[in-house]
């Protein structure tokens, strides 16, 4: 455990993030598109232009890959909680040769989920919402771990029950998205307190 409940989190009350306007129409991808484009994951030119991701333009095998297609994950898990806050962790790996810019995380029940980063060191670690996107460089891993970057559930609408699985939708800056399953586990760490009175 890299940090404990005694760590002082000098962060003010969390900002409620206003989801950026996403051109969600363009994020809808059909299964046939995926089946077609998933066959070729290599040789993608850099492209962050969401407008190139329309289904009509994507049916060709020469279609540029989306950011979502470059993601693989491992050891993804979320902390069990009946209500309130919780967090999700795991390793995000970029298999592509373009940067993956994780822009937003959502789930089916509409929980508010923030991307958080830890700053500082030792007893002076503090947590804040990430400014901008979480960027995964080509070929690189980003580890989401207790005491480090993580995905934060701000106020659960449904319990996260140990041994079950919860699915999060990871949305990237090009409008592409992917679903990732997180195994729910008991965990006594990650007791970050986001109460605005903490540390006062």
């Amino acid at each position, binding site marked *: 455990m890299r940090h404990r409940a005694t760590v002082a989190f000098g962060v003010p009350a969390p900002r409620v993030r206003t989801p950026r306007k996403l051109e969600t129409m363009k994020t809808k*991808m059909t299964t046939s598109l995926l089946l077609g484009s998933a066959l070729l994951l290599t040789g993608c030119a850099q492209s962050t232009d969401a407008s190139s991701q329309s289904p009509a333009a994507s049916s060709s095998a020469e279609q540029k890959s989306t950011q979502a297609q470059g993601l693989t994950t491992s050891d993804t898990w979320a902390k069990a909680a009946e209500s309130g806050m919780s967090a999700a962790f795991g390793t995000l790996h970029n298999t592509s040769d373009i940067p993956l810019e994780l822009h937003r995380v959502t789930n089916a029940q509409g929980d508010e989920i923030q991307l958080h980063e830890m700053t500082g060191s030792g007893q002076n670690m503090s947590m804040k919402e990430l400014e901008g996107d979480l960027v995964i460089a080509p070929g690189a891993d980003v580890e989401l771990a207790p005491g480090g970057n993580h995905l934060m559930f701000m106020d659960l609408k449904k319990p996260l029950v140990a041994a079950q699985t919860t699915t999060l939708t990871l949305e990237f800056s090009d409008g592409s998205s992917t679903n990732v399953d997180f195994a729910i586990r008991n965990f006594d760490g990650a007791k970050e307190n986001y109460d605005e009175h903490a540390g006062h």
Partner: protein
Amino acid sequence: MSMPDTSVPRRLLLGSTAAAAAGGLLTGFGTGRMRAQAATTEQAPTGPGFRSFYGQYQSGIIDDQQQHAVFVGWDLNWREGSKKQQLQALLQMLSDDAARLMSGRGVLADTEPEMALPPSELTLTVGLGQSLLDVTGYGKVGAMPAFAGDELKEQYPQSDLLIQFCSQDPTVLHHAVRAVSKNLRELTSQRFVQTGFMRPMPGKETFRNLFGQVDGINNPADQVREQAVFGDGQNSWIPNGTTLALRRFEMDLDRWDEVDVAGRDFALGRRQSDGSPLSGSSIDDAVDLSAENELGLPSIAANAHVALAKPGHGGETIHRRGYNFDDGQHSGLLFASYQRDARSSFIPVQHRLAAADALNTWLTPVGSALYAILPGIAEGGYLGQQLFG
């Protein structure tokens, strides 16, 4: 039995990065969205020091017995909703835990994953009580009956769920038990933790129990063992599954101290010194109940332990995989046996022993339970998946 190998396969040192990179093409699309590939198909390491989680049978049953064991029993705490789905999720989690721990990795959310290496032949073997079979609606192994002389204690009951943890290294074992127990917290209430130890005798799958006797001499080997434990696919509760009889016998070692060697050998029917039967001269000699001594009396008394324990027919054959225990107050034998159907093997034999075994004078049964041991699985599957078809 090979000693634990402390070398670490290079594959393990590569970590999840390499595994993720090697994950290959994307699979498992949802409708309208893609699903990121989870790199869970990492190949399990093999070689000395590792037992495979995947296979026809679960490990920890007919493979070589490790020197240390912990048997942990839990009852399930049900939430609202489908019990069957809750049990399924729990078994999926346990399968993930076991696969990771046996390959030397920490479980998800592990706070001390470093302690999983080297696994030192760690095995986790999962069984269900009849109560959980009833939840699935599949299979019948029944309950352990009461036996004559039972003085069962509340702290060693039948539980819903059982995991047999075994390893050559008690530190690895402790970590594995704690990691799994933390994952089961709130989903379950722990009913017992029974720790055991043994030291195999050179070249033999035998060990000295705390009476000083050589234990395990008549255990079946090879194909006879496999047949006794798993049958032919038709005569066990499920193909490639088996049953575990778990009994805790306290030994009265202070009163055993009062018995001279001849009396001890008479009660067992074998010599304490070398394990040879009183009807022969070598540990490899068969138990011959018709043999007579120079006085014309049976060499092995009718109520000697080996006379009563001898299978009446092949169907009564069991495979013992027990351990010594010493919990600080009591010591004895943590009897564990695997057999394809306890009702036609372990249970009739145990009734014979409970009624007349000369060793009963120094033995008190204080714990007793029977479990359905799940079949092995292939990679990508989970333990118990056959029950949720």
